[in-house]
């Protein structure tokens, strides 16, 4: 019974996707209902993809843009996580640290990461550094918050057990607090990654020499919708790809979780 409904569900899904693709094709190439300056036809998208992959567009080939964007993401993300996760854990565990850091954090937290872009540009210009700074901030906040929640969510009995078993502080951190908070930490990492991508694309839209956002920007100026779509597709693919990798790391790092 269940298998049947799952298969029929999958069929419906496939049918829906096919229907949309068909509609896309009909509305653009065949009838011209949606003009080429509004939305590209499937064929145009293919052509744009070929162009950027092999000839290059916006001062670079596709792989160069992808590498540039991914490079900035990873740098900002890594730097944010290295600072944010320990800070969140510390704030969650020690009330004193929480009381001291919280006011500043509460002040900065409501400011959306994108709102830091103009300031970053004033400070660091239109280059990579400004983008990394903003990515850092975007990824920093969710890391802290989720690590904090993670520590707080550890069952008090586990901490009592750890204490009655007489372990030293260092072991407490490595063997109890971090693994205990791990599920939340990974949620935070996922959110940080998402925020990082949004911020990067925005930053590159505003000004960059290379990168997927830059591709989108130039394509918009050239009124080249097909290339815009290619850019968007690759933003999605890269973001999704990194999220997938993170998921694998999560699965590997937490073997004790039931599937």
């Amino acid at each position, binding site marked *: 019974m269940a298998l049947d409904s799952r298969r029929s569900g999958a069929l419906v899904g496939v049918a829906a996707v096919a229907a949309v693709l068909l509609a896309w094709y009909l509305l653009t190439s065949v009838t011209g209902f949606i003009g080429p300056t509004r939305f590209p036809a499937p064929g145009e998208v293919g052509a744009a993809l070929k162009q950027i992959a092999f000839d290059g567009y916006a001062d670079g080939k596709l792989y160069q843009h992808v590498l540039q964007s991914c490079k900035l993401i990873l740098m900002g993300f890594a730097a944010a996580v290295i600072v944010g996760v320990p800070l969140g854990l510390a704030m969650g*565990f020690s*009330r004193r640290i929480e*009381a*001291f850091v919280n006011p500043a954090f509460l002040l900065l937290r409501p400011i959306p*990461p994108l709102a830091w872009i*103009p300031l970053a540009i004033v*400070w660091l210009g239109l280059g990579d550094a400004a983008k990394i700074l903003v990515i850092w901030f975007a990824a920093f906040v969710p890391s802290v918050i989720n690590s904090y929640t993670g520590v707080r969510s550890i069952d008090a009995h586990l901490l009592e057990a750890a204490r009655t078993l007489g372990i030293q502080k260092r072991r407490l951190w490595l063997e109890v607090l971090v693994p205990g908070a791990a599920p939340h930490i990974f949620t935070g990492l996922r959110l940080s990654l998402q925020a990082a991508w949004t911020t990067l694309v925005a930053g590159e839209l505003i000004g960059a020499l290379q990168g997927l956002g830059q591709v989108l920007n130039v394509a918009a100026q050239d009124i080249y919708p097909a290339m815009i779509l290619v*850019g968007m597709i690759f933003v999605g693919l890269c973001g999704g790809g990194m999220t997938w990798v993170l998921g694998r790391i999560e699965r590997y790092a937490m073997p004790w979780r039931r599937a």
Partner: protein
Amino acid sequence: MAPYPEQAELSGREFWTLSFLGLLMFFGAWSVLALSGLMPSMFLPTPWAVAERAVELTFHPFAGYTIQVHLISSIGRFLLGFGLAAAIGVPLGLAMGWFRWLDAAVTPLLEAVRFVAPIAWVPFAALWFGTGIGGPTLIIFTGAFPPALINAYRGARFVEPRLIEAARTLGAGNWRIIVEVLLPASVPSIVAGLRISAGLGWQSLIGAELIVASSGIGYLMVKGQSSISTTTVMSGMIAIGAVGFAIDVLLRRLQRRIEAASGIGE
């Protein structure tokens, strides 16, 4: 008693003293850095210079309007985009949660666009709407739509089966079940989703206004940046943060009231 002494709740006095010290350190470090001359005052104004500028912007227009008019413009766009996202996302999510075939049909399409950051829609928005209100609204919509949809979906899909079974055994038909069981049971989830939705929507708005607007807080900040008026930029940041915070507080209060009314919570 807390397992470890570090976790013990602080006395009121200790809490406020530490909080105050933390705040002091923050503003202190800022001021010291600004005054030290390490960075040109253009780049890092003192906190009071920013405050001064913020106040000034309320009566002295910049980039076309005073700061409050820009804010109203932004909030207006936000409400439009958020309203649309909620109006479409919530019913659609509920329907998807209830009708499996709809879920099966729509989910693959949504999964395909899931990883495209809302901000990536800006070029199309610019192409289709220019700098009119449609552009930012579209971006806000793309940001606010997923959480509204997903949480409504979850609310409907994961209603306790026992409740539905009980309703059926008591003789209620499909329509009654949807209206009297599914809907009320989904409300907490819907409201939680709208809170997240509002937050993301407001963030996306800023992104949109940085690029495709001719008014609004984001626009104010971009103009401030190009004139290297850091105080203006920071004033904008404060305004954005304040409004975002206010929206969240309001929705949180609404959430609590709804939860109390529907018997959820402690």
